[in-house]
């Protein structure tokens, strides 16, 4: 059993990513090459480096949103390592439903669905009863200090910071074994950033494995269990 606990949740090996822009004469943009990274339970690896170094690209490769150009991204899913490079779309969707959540800066949701329903959705998808899902969603929205009057409304008209909190609520309510955080606190004020840091720490204590990008230095210092410098893997453009 103890051996099992040592297995990384995320294992990136020799990962290379480049884009070929066919609209621009087939220009090839190299992002990084030969990148290795392991993330274990309870770890929050914060990606360091200036913008344009490929931090978001790495997170998107791990989520299966971007294809890899070389190497592998292995995710521990149902106790087995799955290499996203060879996985079927069905498997990747199953991993996203049950194992791996992703919080971006932007909320991309269906226009007419209420905030409460949006936060309940990831729980309902995983077979949690409607009653329990609603209770957990309410508790999560309350802890993020989103005014209760907003809960029955679709978030389309909310402010940037409010939308971002809905996004965070959707991902943290599920208690995913793996969480990928791409600037989840970008439009939040200091008090709300503090709340998110507490959520991150609570999830880590429960054994979540995380990769994060945080623009804000205080969040970065508070959330990170270690830093990962991406610049050394930068490939020549």
């Amino acid at each position, binding site marked *: 059993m103890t051996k099992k606990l040592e297995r990384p949740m995320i294992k990136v090996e020799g990962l290379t990513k480049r884009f070929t*822009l066919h609209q621009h004469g087939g220009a090839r943009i190299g992002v990084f090459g030969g990148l290795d990274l392991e993330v274990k339970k309870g770890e929050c690896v914060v990606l360091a480096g200036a913008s344009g170094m490929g931090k978001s690209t790495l997170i998107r490769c791990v989520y299966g949103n971007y294809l890899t150009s070389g190497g592998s991204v292995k995710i521990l899913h149902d106790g087995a390592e799955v290499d996203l490079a060879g996985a079927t*779309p069905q498997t990747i969707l199953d991993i996203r439903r049950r194992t791996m959540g992703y919080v971006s800066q932007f909320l991309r949701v*269906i226009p*007419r669905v209420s905030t409460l329903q949006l936060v309940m959705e990831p729980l309902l998808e995983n077979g949690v009863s409607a009653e329990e899902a609603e209770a957990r969603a309410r508790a999560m929205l309350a802890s993020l200090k989103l005014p209760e009057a907003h809960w029955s409304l679709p978030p389309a008209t909310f402010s940037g910071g409010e939308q971002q909190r809905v996004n965070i609520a959707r991902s943290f309510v599920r208690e995913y074994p793996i969480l990928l955080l791409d600037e989840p606190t970008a439009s939040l004020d200091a008090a709300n950033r503090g709340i998110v840091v507490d959520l991150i720490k609570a999830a880590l204590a429960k054994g979540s494995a995380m990769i994060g990008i945080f623009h804000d230095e205080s969040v970065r210092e508070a959330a990170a269990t270690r830093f990962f410098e991406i610049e050394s893997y930068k490939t020549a453009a």
Partner: protein
Amino acid sequence: MTTQAPPLLRVNRVSKWFGEIVGCRNVSFDLHPGEILGVVGESGSGKTTLLRCLSGKLEPTSGGAEFLSKRHGPVDIFQLGEQDRRRLQREEWGFVHQNPRDGLRMRVSGGANVAEPLMSLGGRHYGQMRRATTDWLERVELDISRVDHKPRNFSGGMQQRIQIARNLIHQPRLVFMDEPTGGLDVSVQARLLDLLRELVRDLQLSAIIVTHDMGVARLMADRLLVMKNGDVVETGLTDQVLDDAQHPYTQLLVSSVLQL
């Protein structure tokens, strides 16, 4: 979960030629239960030809498509006799046309249009059918008091809702949709898409949606098939195909979308 279930539809090298002109060429894919597949590409790329072949409306030149039928078990839809194929279309499939006039009977009331599939499947209990019809009109957010109006007295968006109710009332397992929001205003389109999405998820339907609209594809589809000149040039998870397109044609399609 979905990874274990056998595919509902297995499409194997389907081609359709119109004389010398290619409609679609060597298209293969699996569709799993509960999965929504988007087929995208510009007009003339072969998406509607493919949809018409797979839904049994058009005989392909070559290839096979095995459907996991409730009645027959796995059957190749192109090998079925005319009568069995029609029964399969009636019992286990739905087809939502871009133009509601192609999918509705314009001379009978909206309510009768919705109830008709139940009657043609042998429903005899008038009260039950009436209840199912009212229930479906409510689900597609139509005013019940207008149940006896003819389709031509409804707006385009409402006609499309009637068509959707007509195609889902018999609880099909697979629904084909050809530009289901194509001719509608954007505000009507958004509401209809929300509705379709909810229905498809609630009923655990599988669907194949043909669209040239990348926004519709992102909202509705789990997976995309990109077609150009009759060929499938790229496939993958919807967000991956849209955010990290590999084929020059897909990159062109994605980069041509206006950002709001």
